[in-house]
């Protein structure tokens, strides 16, 4: 039998149909912060089931780390896209029409969107009190700062940074900003809920079946065993399908309708449900003149949006890995998850590492420049080695940073020339503490069934489980199956996140199979990784094993326009031992391509908190023709090495490697994505040409006069993203290259016309440049005065 993915036979949760099922549509707030004064449903036709705030008033609150979410907000809506009411009807169209007939009156309240501003005194409060969740996803010390928008403050203290900076011969400091991005899984969020008396069953593509069960049980005030979560394969997730998304509303509607209810989100609603944290990161690093790092200070603001989700966890990981894989005697980190009136931000491939790695690795190059050292040499001099202590106090084992970095630079020919080339090295934690359990059942026909809560989102987890089990059982892989997780059947597991499953479950599997060999029918295995950090000092064990990665990039830059191309990208990561090579390669390639999108053009754009590019036409994700001519990677293994998770490791090093490649030309970009406009501004800043736009306006008008949307000019695939008008054809055979300035023939009869057009164009360009400048000013993160030391 061929793979179900090529026959289209995979059934995702959006394909689930049940007898008597209704379809839901959600009514979302257009405003970012408001009191809901009135919801008038009198125009909704009879037969449609309407869920209003008053119908869920008796329910509890939920949230994986902070208990700040309600089935429907009772008091006020906190972001543009917050769900005000919901309708279930016989068809999705009827539900949508009914939602359109609901009239809502809002009283707008002051809102705050930017993380540093939101964390400052006097900012409008998104939540008046901050209560820590009892969900086991709140597994580390969470430190809400009551009376502020900071729902978690993580601190790391190692040595004395004041002393360290005094010892330093050279100190560099910079503040960085990274835009919000969206996961954009090809399959949207979809869930079907049904009740059988007091028992709730939800079929939903989720990475976190047991966390979902806990939150839904808490919401309805029922025992966890009364909630059953079934998780079919996901059409991509990347962190999006974690914790409760649409499931609470589906369950509330199903309870009211007394029928199964299905929720499938529209593409635009994906941006209103969960995104990646925009972040501001300030880094200060000090070194002796020989390059020895002596002090590192990092301050992170992770913009978690209107509901915390796992923002505290993201801020913690962004913080504890911020100093990077270096030996530094004096380290201080303050990392905050900050509420704002943006849509919630949560887990996203890389989990906070991308943001702080961008800031630190760019700063390392600034430092190298100031020390007049080779950036590679500076890093190698300070890299952690086996047996060294990290700034958390834990001892590092199985360390391969130097090998990874060397592999990265060799691929771009670093030793021949450093121009146009950049590099990055980083470490990323795996969730610690963590517990995994798995059962293996021997069937009568000689086959084996692996039962575990590890979910499949395309990463190949099921196949990895089957392959590892087959190897341990010495049977063909065809003899082993791994059904979809069902919380009624599988043993408890923390969740399928942080690239932990193959590593943790693989170890539990060994125990289970040893147990099976003893008793013959069913083997059970469990592993527990202890550890964790003190949230006020950051001391302890941050990660029971560290993901290690590096990258190098080579770019080609057109300094007239700011347009640049990544021509070479290479990322070596430590893999320990590879189970399924093609699947492991896919993880690396996928991470790098996602990292490329984040580096070059992915950016959620908002106006007064309202998402303005919530579609895949205005929000670009990388396509095949965006790939660098040379994209390669390495899975570094070690004889007797442990199985390592590798779902994310190759993503965070990509943007800094590209940023540093630009910096090899003195082009210093601090914000992601690295748009052509930002490059151009950095070129002007380097050349000391002062007022960038004044110079730009004297440039020929062939400079990309299109809109300032990040990276648009880098894409070679503009035409393929445009829907072909008329018949909806998707044929690329008639694609030209619209969107490019085409050479005009100097026909004499057209000269007059050209002159007129030219003057008009010049006026438009001048206007746009001026407008862009104003926009850019608005967008630049407002760092409070206190930070500008």
């Amino acid at each position, binding site marked *: 039998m061929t793979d179900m993915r090529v026959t289209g036979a995979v059934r995702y949760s959006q394909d689930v149909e049940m007898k008597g099922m209704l379809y839901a549509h959600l009514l979302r707030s257009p405003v970012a912060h408001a009191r809901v004064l009135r919801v008038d449903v009198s125009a909704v036709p009879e037969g449609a089931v309407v869920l209003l705030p008053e119908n869920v008033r008796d329910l509890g609150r939920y949230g994986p780390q902070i208990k700040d979410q309600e089935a429907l907000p009772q008091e006020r809506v906190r972001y543009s896209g917050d769900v005000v009411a919901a309708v279930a009807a016989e068809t999705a169209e009827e539900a949508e029409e009914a939602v359109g007939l609901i009239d809502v009156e809002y009283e707008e309240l002051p809102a705050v969107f930017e993380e540093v501003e939101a964390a400052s005194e006097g900012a409008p409060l998104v939540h008046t009190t901050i209560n820590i969740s009892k969900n086991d996803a709140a597994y580390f010390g969470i430190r809400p700062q009551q009376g502020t928008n900071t729902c978690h403050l993580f601190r790391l203290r190692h040595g004395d940074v004041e002393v360290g900076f005094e010892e330093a011969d050279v100190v560099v400091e910079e503040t960085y900003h990274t835009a919000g991005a969206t996961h954009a899984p090809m*399959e949207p969020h979809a869930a079907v809920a049904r009740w059988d008396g007091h028992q709730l069953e939800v079929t939903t593509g989720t990475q976190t079946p047991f966390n979902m069960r806990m939150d839904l049980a808490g919401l309805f005030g029922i025992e966890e065993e009364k909630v059953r979560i079934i998780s079919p394969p996901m059409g*991509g997730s990347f962190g999006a399908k974690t914790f409760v998304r649409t499931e609470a509303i589906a369950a509330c509607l199903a309870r009211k309708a007394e029928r199964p209810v299905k929720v499938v989100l529209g593409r635009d609603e994906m941006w209103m449900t969960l995104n990646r944290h925009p972040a501001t990161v300030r880094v200060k690093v000090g070194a002796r003149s020989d390059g020895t790092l002596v002090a590192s200070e990092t301050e992170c603001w992770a913009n978690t949006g209107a509901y915390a989700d796992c923002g505290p966890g993201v801020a913690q990981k962004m913080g504890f890995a911020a100093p990077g894989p270096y030996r530094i005697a004096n380290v201080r980190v303050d990392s905050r998850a900050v509420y704002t009136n943006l849509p919630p931000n949560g887990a996203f491939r890389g989990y906070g590492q991308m943001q702080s790695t961008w800031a630190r690795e760019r700063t390392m190059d600034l430092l190298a420049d100031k020390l007049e050292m080779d950036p590679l040499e500076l890093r190698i001099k300070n890299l952690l080695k086996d047996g060294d202590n990290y700034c958390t106090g834990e001892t590092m084992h199985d360390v391969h940073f130097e090998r990874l970095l060397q592999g990265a630079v060799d691929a771009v020919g670093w030793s021949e020339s450093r121009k146009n080339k950049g590099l990055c090295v980083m470490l990323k934690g795996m969730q610690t503490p963590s517990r995994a359990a798995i059962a293996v059942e021997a069937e009568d026909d000689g086959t084996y069934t692996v039962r575990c809560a590890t979910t499949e*989102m395309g*990463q190949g987890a099921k196949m990895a489980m089957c392959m590892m089990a087959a190897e341990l059982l010495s049977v063909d892989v065809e003899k082993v199956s791994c059904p979809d997780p069902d919380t009624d059947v599988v043993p408890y597991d923390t969740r399928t996140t942080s690239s932990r499953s193959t590593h943790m479950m693989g170890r539990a599997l060994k125990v289970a199979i040893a147990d099976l060999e003893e008793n013959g029918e069913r083997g059970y295995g469990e592993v527990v990784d202890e550890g964790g950090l003190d949230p006020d000092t950051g001391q302890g064990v941050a990660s029971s094993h560290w993901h290690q990665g590096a990258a190098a990039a080579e770019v080609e830059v057109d300094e007239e326009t700011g347009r640049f191309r990544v021509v070479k990208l290479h990322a070596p990561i430590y893999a320990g031992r590879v189970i399924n090579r093609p699947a492991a390669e896919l993880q690396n390639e996928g991470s*790098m391509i996602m990292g490329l999108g984040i580096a070059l053009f992915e950016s959620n754009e908002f106006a007064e908190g309202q998402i303005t590019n919530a*579609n895949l036409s205005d929000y670009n994700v990388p396509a*095949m023709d*965006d790939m660098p001519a040379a994209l390669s990677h390495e899975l570094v293994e070690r004889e007797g090495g442990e199985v390592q998770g590798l779902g994310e490791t190759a993503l965070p090093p990509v943007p800094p490697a590209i940023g540093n490649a630009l910096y090899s030309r003195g082009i210093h970009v601090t914000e992601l994505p690295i748009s052509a406009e930002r490059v151009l501004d950095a070129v002007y800043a380097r050349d000391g040409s002062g007022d960038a736009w004044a110079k730009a306006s004297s440039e020929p008008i062939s400079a990309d006069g299109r809109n300032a949307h990040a990276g648009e000019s880098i894409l070679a695939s503009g035409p393929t993203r445009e*829907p072909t008008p008329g018949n*909806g054809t998707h044929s690329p055979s008639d694609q030209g290259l619209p969107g490019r300035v085409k050479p005009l023939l100097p026909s004499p009869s057209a000269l007059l016309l050209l002159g007129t057009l030219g003057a008009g164009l010049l006026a438009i360009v001048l206007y746009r440049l001026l407008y862009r400048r104003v926009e850019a000013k608005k967008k630049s993160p407002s760092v409070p005065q206190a930070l500008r030391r």
Partner: protein
Amino acid sequence: MKVRFNVNGEAVEVEARTDEMLLDVLRREVALTSVRQTCGVGVCGTCTTLVDGEPFSTCIMLAPLAEGKKITTVEGLGGNHPVQDAFVEAMAFQCGYCTPGMILMVKSLLEEDPEPTEEKIRQYMGGNLCRCGCYAKIEDAVNLAASASKVAPSKGGA
């Protein structure tokens, strides 16, 4: 209204609203769940089907326009079409959600150009998005399918 077309070699007559897209009708009336929605605006290629042999984004094609047309989805390729085999051999997928659209697009590409260059592949496939980022292996699959087709001409599916 009634719409009649041929899908994967079978003549069907389905009920559709005049403002409905072919994607929704194929899923609801013909139960072809390999045809999947992602962007809804014709830019991602996930819902690609072949209409009289040409790739179309069915999320922006009105269902009544399918009247009298010959429609092919991956269900109609039989499972061992050279392009499907090439995708399996190259492991050119992760979650599999975009795979049916990719396969149909590759089929169309190779019919148009049996030996596409790297540039041609990347440009032609540039309208089919894969968020898992399997592009390198999809490119491998195109090349594998191209060489397989040279040895044994495509069975052609529906």
